[in-house]
C-alpha cells in the first residue's frame, strides 16, 4: 500500500474510532496511538522523499515535494503533541465534571480529523483537492472552537465559520480563475488542476485572469492563515478553542494555510514574475506585524495574546516569502520550523494556567503565577522567550536571517519598519508575560487559590515540547535541515 | 388630399385600437381576479364579471357630494380621456402606433402623468379625508415610479435606437432582438413599476378598502355610478396598456408588419397570449407576496429605479 495514503488513512481511522465507538480509555489509546503512528508515517514519507523518490497518489493529486514534506512533518509533530496533551487536558476537565459524553466523542473524533485535514492540505498538489482539504480543516475545527458551548465560544465559532467560508469562497474563485487562465494548456483529466501542470504551463497562462485569480486566492487562503486584515477570527477562535485544538490551529493550520499561499505565489511567480504576488505578501505580512503590535501591548487575555503573537509570526513569514531572495525564503522556512517547535510550549503552559484558574483572562488569573504554578509558569516564560525571538533560540536566528536579507535588498524602508515593529512586539510580549508570571499579586487576600499543579500527562507533554524546542536551537537534525533546504529549493530564491 | 386621407386613416386606426383595448381591459381584470381566486382555492367571479360591473355602474344615477365643484366631475372624464389617448401611442397588433407621428415615449409618459394628475386633483376636490390621503400616497409613489418608468423605457429604447414606440418596435422586429442583460434588468424594473402603477399587491390591494393602506381605492372612494365606471374602466385599460408596453419592448414577436387581415388576426392571438402570460406573472406576484407597509413602498419602487439605472449602466459596459 502506498505510504502516503497510509499516512492519511491512519488519522482518519483514528477519528472514526474515537468519534463513534469505545470507552474513554479506548478513545484515549486510539487517539494517542493513531497520532503517534501518523507522526512516524509522516517521518517515513519525508525520508522516502529525501531518499530520492517523490511519493504521490491519485494522478499526482497528492504529491510530496520539499515544501510538502516539511509542512507534513511539522503537522505530524504538532499532531502527536496535541494528541497526548489533549488526553491530559480532557482528564483534567473530567475531574472537574465538565465533560459530557457528547463532548468526549466530539473531542476524540475531531482532533484526529483536524490532523487528517491538515495533512491532506500539506500533500495536495491538485488545487481543487487543496481547496477541499482546507475547507475540511475549517469544518473539522468549528465544533472544536464551540467545544465549551459558552456564549463567547458560539460567537467565536460563528465568526470563524462565516469568515472562513467567505475566505474559502474567495479561494475557490481564485482557483477557478487560475484554472480559467490555463485556457486549455493544462491538459485533460483530474490532473489538469495539478500545481505542477500550472508551473509547466506558466508562460502560456492568460495574465489578466491569472492576476485576478492570484489576488482572490491569496486573500482567501490568507484569511485561513490569519494574515491581516483578515485576521479577526483568530483571537476569538484561539481563546475559545481547547488548548490542544488551539495548538493545532496555531501551528498546523497556520503552516497549512501558508502552504496554500505559497503554492499560489509560486504559480504567480512563474507566470508573472516575483513582484506581483511577492509585493502583495510583503504588504500583508507587514500589515499583520503592525496590527499585532497595539493589541499585544494592551492585551487582557492570555490566549488572545498568543493569537496576536501567531498573527505576528505569520506576518514575519509572509514578509520573508515576499522579500523573495534566497536567504529570505530560507529564513522564512526556518522560522516556520522553529515557530512550530516552540509554539506548543507556550500554548500548553498557557492552557494549563487557564485550566487551573478556569479562565484565560489576565485579571482572573492574577499576577505572580510563579508562586502558584511554578512548572507551567516556568514553561510559559521559557516558551515565550523562544517565541519572542530572544537569543540564543532559533526564532532569533530566523528573524535575523530575514532582516539581513531585507536590508541587503531593495526593500530597506519596509524592513526598517518591520524591525521597529518587531522590537516593540518583543517588549510588549515580554512585558505581558513578565507581569503575569513574576509581577506582585495585586490583592493577595481576594485571589482565588487554584488547585495545586500536578505532574500529569499534559504537564509532561509540555516539558517534552520545551525540551525539543530548546534542543532545536542548538542542534537541528541533518534530515530536518535537508527538508528545509529542499523546501527552500521549491519556493526558490534568486530571480 | 393625401395628408388628410392618411390623417383620417390614422384616426380610424386609433379609434379601432382604443376600442380593442377598451373591450379587452375588463376581461383582463377579471381574469387576474379569477386566477388569484383559484390559487386560493376559491371559485372566483365569472369571466364576464368585469363587463357586468361596468354595465351596472353606468346604468346608475351619479351621486355627487354637495361640496363638489366642476373639478370633481371633470376628473374621471379627463382621466379616462388621457388613458384612452395614451392607448393610441402604443403598438398593439400592428408594428406601429396610430398616433406615432404625434410623439413617442415622452408623450406617453406625459399622458399617463396627466391622467394621474386629473384623478388626484379630483380626489382632493371634495375635501374628504380619504381622498386627500389617497392622493398624497399616490403622488409619493409616483414621484419615485415616474423616473424609474422613464429610465426603464429609455434604456430599452437605447437598444433599438428610437424614442418613438412604433419605430422602436419596427427596428426590433426588422433587426432581430439582440439580447443583452440590461434588457432583463430593465424588464424587471419596469415590471415592478407596473405592479406599483396598477395598484397591485405588494404596493396596494385592489380587493380591500382598508383605510390604513389603500391608495387607489381611497382616491375613488367618493365616486359612484358612471363616474366610478369611467375611473375603473380607465384603470383597467391602463393596466392592459402597461402590459402591452412590456410586451412591445421586450418580446415584439408576432406583431403584424402589414395590415393584412390574416397577420393581424395572428397578431391578435399572439398579443392576447403574451398579455395572458404577463397576467399570470402579476397574479403570482400578488399571491406570493404580502402587502407592504406604506412607508416600505418607496423602497420597493427604489429597487426598480436601481434596476433601471443598472440596466442603463450595463448597456455601456
Amino acid at each position, binding site marked *: 500500500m502506498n505510504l502516503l495514503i497510509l499516512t492519511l488513512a491512519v488519522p482518519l481511522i483514528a477519528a472514526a474510532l474515537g468519534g463513534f465507538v469505545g470507552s474513554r480509555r479506548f478513545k484515549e489509546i486510539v487517539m494517542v496511538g493513531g497520532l503517534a503512528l501518523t507522526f512516524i508515517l509522516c517521518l517515513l514519507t519525508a525520508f522516502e522523499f529525501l531518499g530520492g523518490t517523490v511519493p504521490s497518489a491519485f494522478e499526482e493529486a497528492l504529491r510530496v515535494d520539499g515544501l510538502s514534506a516539511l509542512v507534513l512533518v511539522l503537522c505530524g509533530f504538532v499532531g502527536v503533541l496535541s494528541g497526548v496533551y489533549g488526553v491530559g487536558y480532557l482528564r483534567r476537565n473530567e475531574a472537574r465534571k465538565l465533560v459530557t459524553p457528547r463532548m468526549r466523542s466530539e473531542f476524540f473524533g475531531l482532533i484526529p480529523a483536524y490532523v487528517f485535514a491538515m495533512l491532506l492540505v500539506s500533500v495536495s498538489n491538485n488545487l481543487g483537492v487543496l481547496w*477541499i482539504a482546507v475547507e475540511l480543516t475549517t469544518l473539522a475545527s*468549528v465544533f472544536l472552537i464551540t467545544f465549551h458551548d459558552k456564549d463567547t465560544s458560539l460567537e467565536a465559532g460563528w465568526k470563524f465559520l*462565516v469568515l472562513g467560508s467567505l475566505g474559502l469562497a474567495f479561494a475557490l474563485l481564485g482557483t*477557478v*480563475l487560475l484554472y480559467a487562465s490555463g*485556457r486549455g494548456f493544462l491538459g485533460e483529466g483530474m490532473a489538469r488542476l495539478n500545481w505542477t501542470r500550472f508551473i509547466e504551463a506558466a508562460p502560456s497562462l492568460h495574465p489578466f485572469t491569472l492576476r485576478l485569480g492570484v489576488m482572490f486566492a491569496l486573500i482567501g487562503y490568507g484569511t485561513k492563515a490569519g494574515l491581516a486584515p483578515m485576521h479577526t477570527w483568530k483571537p476569538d477562535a484561539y481563546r475559545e478553542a481547547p488548548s490542544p485544538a488551539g495548538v493545532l490551529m496555531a501551528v498546523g493550520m497556520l503552516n497549512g494555510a501558508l502552504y496554500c499561499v505559497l503554492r499560489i505565489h509560486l504559480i504567480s511567480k512563474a507566470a508573472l514574475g516575483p513582484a506581483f504576488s511577492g509585493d502583495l505578501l510583503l504588504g500583508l505580512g507587514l500589515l499583520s506585524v503592525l496590527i499585532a503590535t497595539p493589541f499585544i501591548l494592551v492585551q487582557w487575555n492570555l490566549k488572545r495574546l498568543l493569537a496576536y503573537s501567531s498573527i505576528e509570526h505569520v506576518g514575519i513569514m509572509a514578509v520573508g516569502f515576499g522579500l523573495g531572495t534566497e536567504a529570505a525564503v530560507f529564513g522564512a522556512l526556518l522560522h516556520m520550523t522553529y515557530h512550530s517547535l516552540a509554539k506548543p510550549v507556550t500554548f500548553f503552559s498557557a492552557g494549563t494556567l487557564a485550566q487551573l484558574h478556569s479562565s484565560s483572562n489576565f485579571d482572573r488569573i492574577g499576577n505572580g503565577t510563579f508562586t502558584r504554578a511554578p512548572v507551567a509558569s516556568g514553561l510559559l516564560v521559557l516558551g515565550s522567550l523562544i517565541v519572542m525571538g530572544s537569543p540564543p533560540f532559533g526564532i532569533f536566528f530566523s528573524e535575523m536571517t530575514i532582516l539581513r536579507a531585507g536590508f541587503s535588498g531593495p526593500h530597506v524602508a519596509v524592513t526598517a519598519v518591520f524591525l521597529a515593529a518587531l522590537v516593540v512586539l518583543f517588549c510588549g510580549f515580554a512585558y505581558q508575560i513578565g507581569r503575569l508570571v513574576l509581577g506582585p499579586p495585586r490583592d493577595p487576600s481576594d485571589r482565588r487559590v487554584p488547585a495545586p499543579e500536578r505532574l500529569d500527562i499534559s504537564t509532561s507533554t509540555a516539558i517534552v515540547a520545551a525540551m525539543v524546542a530548546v534542543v532545536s536551537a542548538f542542534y537541528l537534525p541533518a534530515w530536518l535541515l535537508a527538508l528545509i533546504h529542499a523546501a527552500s529549493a521549491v519556493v526558490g530564491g534568486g530571480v | 388630399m393625401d395628408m388628410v386621407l392618411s390623417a383620417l386613416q390614422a384616426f380610424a386606426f386609433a379609434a379601432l385600437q382604443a376600442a380593442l383595448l377598451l373591450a379587452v381591459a375588463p376581461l383582463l381584470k377579471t381574469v387576474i381576479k379569477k386566477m388569484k381566486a383559484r390559487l386560493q382555492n376559491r371559485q372566483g367571479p365569472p369571466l364576464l364579471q368585469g363587463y357586468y360591473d361596468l354595465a351596472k355602474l353606468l346604468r346608475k344615477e351619479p351621486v355627487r357630494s354637495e361640496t363638489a365643484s366642476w373639478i370633481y366631475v371633470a376628473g374621471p372624464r379627463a382621466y379616462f380621456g388621457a388613458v384612452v389617448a395614451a392607448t393610441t401611442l402604443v403598438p398593439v397588433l400592428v408594428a406601429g402606433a396610430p398616433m406615432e407621428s404625434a410623439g413617442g415615449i415622452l408623450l406617453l409618459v406625459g399622458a399617463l402623468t396627466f391622467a394621474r394628475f386629473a384623478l388626484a386633483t379630483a380626489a382632493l376636490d371634495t375635501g374628504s379625508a380619504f381622498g386627500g390621503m389617497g392622493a398624497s400616497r399616490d403622488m409619493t409613489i409616483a414621484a419615485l415610479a415616474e423616473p424609474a418608468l422613464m429610465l426603464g423605457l429609455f434604456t430599452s429604447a437605447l437598444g433599438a435606437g428610437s424614442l418613438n414606440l412604433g419605430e422602436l418596435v419596427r427596428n426590433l422586429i426588422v433587426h432581430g432582438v439582440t439580447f*443583452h442583460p440590461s434588457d432583463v434588468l430593465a424588464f424587471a424594473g419596469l415590471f415592478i413599476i407596473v405592479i406599483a402603477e396598477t395598484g397591485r399587491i405588494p404596493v396596494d390591494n385592489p380587493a380591500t378598502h382598508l383605510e390604513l393602506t389603500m391608495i387607489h381605492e381611497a382616491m375613488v372612494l367618493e365616486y359612484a355610478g358612471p363616474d366610478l365606471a369611467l375611473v375603473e374602466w380607465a384603470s383597467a385599460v391602463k393596466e392592459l396598456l402597461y402590459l402591452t408596453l412590456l410586451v412591445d419592448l421586450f418580446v415584439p414577436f408576432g406583431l403584424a408588419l402589414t395590415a393584412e387581415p390574416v397577420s393581424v388576426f395572428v397578431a391578435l392571438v399572439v398579443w392576447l397570449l403574451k398579455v395572458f402570460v404577463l397576467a399570470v406573472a402579476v397574479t403570482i406576484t400578488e399571491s*406570493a407576496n404580502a402587502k407592504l407597509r406604506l412607508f416600505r413602498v418607496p423602497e420597493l419602487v427604489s429597487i426598480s429605479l436601481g434596476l433601471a439605472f443598472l440596466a442603463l449602466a450595463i448597456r455601456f459596459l
Partner: protein
Amino acid sequence: MATSDLLILCAAGMLVSAFLMVGQRALFTTIRLYGVQSLFLGVVAAVIALSEDRHELLVTAVITVALKAVLIPWYLMRIIDRIGIHREIEPFLNVPASLMVCLGLTVVGYRVSTGFPQGGRAASHHLIGVALSMLLIGMFLMVTRKKAITQILALLTVENAVFLVAVGVTPGMPLVVELGIAFDVIVAVLLLGILVQRIVDRFESMDISRLSKLKG
C-alpha cells in the same frame, strides 16, 4: 432562441435576484430568491452542458438544482420555522442607500470583466460580469445584514457567483473536485444551520450584532 440568449437571460436573472435580495426585507422571500437564483445557475450549467457536449456539467447542473434550489432553501426555511424568529430583515444600511452601493459594485464588477479574454462563447463576458457583480453584492450583504440566516444567504450568493464563473469561463472542473466542493458546501451550510440554532437557543435572537463580547 439562441443559446447565448438563454445564457444571458439566466445570468441576468441571477443578477436581478441578487439585487432583489438587497432590497428585500421579508426573510422567506429572500430565501426563495436565493432558490430562484440557484435554479438559474442550474439552467446555465445545463444549457452549456447540452450546447457544448460537456456531459459532466450536466451532473453539476443536477446537483446545483437539487442542492441549492431545493434542499438548502428548504433547510433554511425549516430552521426559521423551528426557531420562530421575527421574519423581517433589519439591515444596518437602509434600502435605497444599499441599492446605490450595489449599483456601484455592479458597475465595478462589469468593468473588471472586460479584462477577460474573449472566449469562444459570446455570452462569456456577461457571465463573468454578472458573477463578479454578484460576488461583490454578496459581500456587501454579508457586511450589512444582522441576522445570522441572512449572512448565510449572503455567503451562498457569493458561492453561486463563484460557480457561475466556474461554469461560465472554465472548460469544466474535474468531476471529483466538483463533487468534493458540493459536499463541502452542504456540510458548511449544515454546520452554519446548527450554529444558528445554538445561537438562537442561547441568545434568544438571531441578531448577530449581539455577538460582540469578543474584542481587542
